[in-house]
């Protein structure tokens, strides 16, 4: 039995390329995978990571290098991307979870900057400021994924897989424990949970999702741009997730849609589009802390509250 949410997501996956340029549609689901990983930290564990691009970019560079210089199977490259994301997240996370609150956030940011400057300096491999261009898109199991729609299908399938995996995770004991850590860390510890290790687990899982997204992104544009490992990218995914709603599984998916669609369509018409995004962000923070998901819920609650009144005024007629 499929839930309404899943049917909506499936419909969106099928219909999106009809209405939106294929490259943008593809980017939306890639960014959604990225957001799912972040939200395990932000929404479920209560950890604000400002360094998710570290894992996204690292995986992108490694995968790009492999695709360019060897004839590795694409599926293997995707798996390697996931592992690179998880391993870098394990290293970064190990340092970050030692501290809480603001210090945690600053550590994720500082380490992100370290990775950024490494990529910036290491021009022989990463291409520095010019990025790593010329990344091929070899066949997957004999299927040519060069046509934009074919690549879209691959990304959409991986997105659905990611969403399903994340749904299982947050409904598992681990998902509940992470929420307990978010709610009350000392109590979770007193109950017998090794808080630092569980936070690290969340970090590693989030990193794995970022890694997958990073590889798909590199293959989408045929280049790993330097920005993909930069802090602006880290900020964007936080931004998108908050706009969508960090309190729910589907929040980052909706946020990714809003963010990418706005940035790709409005930016073509108006160069100052980040201003619009800023306004959207302020509105979310001031009025809809739960993002689009909460706004949507409140809208329907408001409609439901109005309906009985309409019925009453209709009655005398």
């Amino acid at each position, binding site marked *: 039995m499929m839930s309404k949410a899943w049917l909506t997501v499936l419909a969106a996956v099928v219909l999106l390329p009809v209405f939106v340029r294929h490259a943008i549609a593809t980017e939306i689901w890639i960014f959604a995978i990225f957001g799912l990983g972040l939200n395990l930290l932000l929404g479920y564990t209560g950890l604000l990571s400002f360094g998710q691009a570290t894992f996204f970019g690292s995986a992108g560079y490694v995968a790009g290098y492999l695709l360019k210089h060897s004839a590795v199977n694409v599926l293997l490259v995707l798996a390697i991307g996931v592992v690179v994301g998880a391993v870098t997240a394990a290293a970064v996370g190990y340092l970050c979870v030692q501290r809480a609150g603001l210090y945690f956030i600053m550590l994720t940011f500082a380490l992100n900057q370290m990775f950024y400057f490494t990529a910036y300096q290491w021009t022989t491999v990463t291409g520095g400021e010019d990025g790593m261009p010329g990344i091929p898109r070899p066949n997957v199991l004999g299927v040519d994924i060069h046509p934009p729609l074919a690549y879209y299908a691959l990304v959409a399938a991986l997105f659905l897989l990611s969403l399903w995996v994340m749904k*299982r*995770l947050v*409904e*598992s*004991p*681990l*998902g*509940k*424990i992470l*929420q*307990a850590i978010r*709610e*009350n860390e*000392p*109590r*979770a*510890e*007193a*109950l*017998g*949970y*090794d*808080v630092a290790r569980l936070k690290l*687990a969340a970090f590693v*899982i989030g990193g794995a999702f970022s890694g997958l997204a990073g590889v798909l992104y590199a293959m989408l544009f045929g280049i790993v741009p330097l920005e993909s490992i930069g802090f602006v990218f880290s900020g964007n995914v936080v931004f998108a997730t908050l706009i969508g709603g960090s309190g729910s599984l589907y929040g980052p998916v909706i946020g990714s849609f809003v963010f990418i669609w706005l940035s790709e369509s409005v930016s073509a018409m108006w160069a100052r589009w980040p201003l619009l995004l800023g306004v959207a962000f302020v509105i979310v923070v001031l009025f809809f802390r739960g993002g689009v998901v909460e706004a949507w819920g409140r809208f329907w609650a408001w409609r439901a509250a109005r309906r009985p009144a309409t019925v009453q005024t209709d009655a005398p007629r």
Partner: protein
Amino acid sequence: MPLVRTEGLTKAFGALTAVNAVTLEVQEGALHSVIGPNGAGKTTFFNLLTGQLAPTAGRIVFDGRDIAGTPPHKIAHLGIARSFQRTSIFPTLSIADNVWLAAFARHDSWRGLAWRRADRYPELLERAQAALGEVGLADKAGQPAREISHGEQRQLELAIALAAAPRLLLLDEPAAGLSPDETQKMVGLVRKLKGRYTIVLIEHKIGVVMSMSDRISVMHFGSVIAEGTPAEIQRDAEVRRAYLGGIAPP
């Protein structure tokens, strides 16, 4: 045989010695109360037992092994559970999840940790439900914990400790901030637990302590100044001077 024994347990914060060379034995199955004025070091003593704080000196022997300085999450797995003086729950999670989390932590295996659905552990659901039934919250299981009254949150606090299936139950002022009616109810709950668990109870309400404790230790400025049965404590002159404020023996 004592289930837990402290030997010269000391905790100093700089110049302040909050717990000073406390030597204390709690017999298996007993209800042992710790009383004393505010700031006597009772809660600090609990924090040492549960690993929230590491002692400056001394030993804590639980079931034959020294556990001083063990981190809290490991202490919990030995079977020491506590309730907090200031309500410490998971506010946005449901009441059922609050107790479920305590039960899962003590589950013998964490199989399916990241994959099995959390509601597919029938024995844990049962244990959680039993703990809620024990404190009278079974019919509110689905509500978020932040939505129930303070009195009910105190009951939940106790249920969380019980769901951990503890061998040693540390109750830090379970009736803190309760109305007289609610206090009565809480006292009834603790009385029901007596004999089934080994309990260390911190409590301010002297009448409650005197009526249900097997033994009482009196703390004052970090030290235990007296220990004995309720009757012995009531007769003790030093205790009356330090704490009971001249309550006449009956």
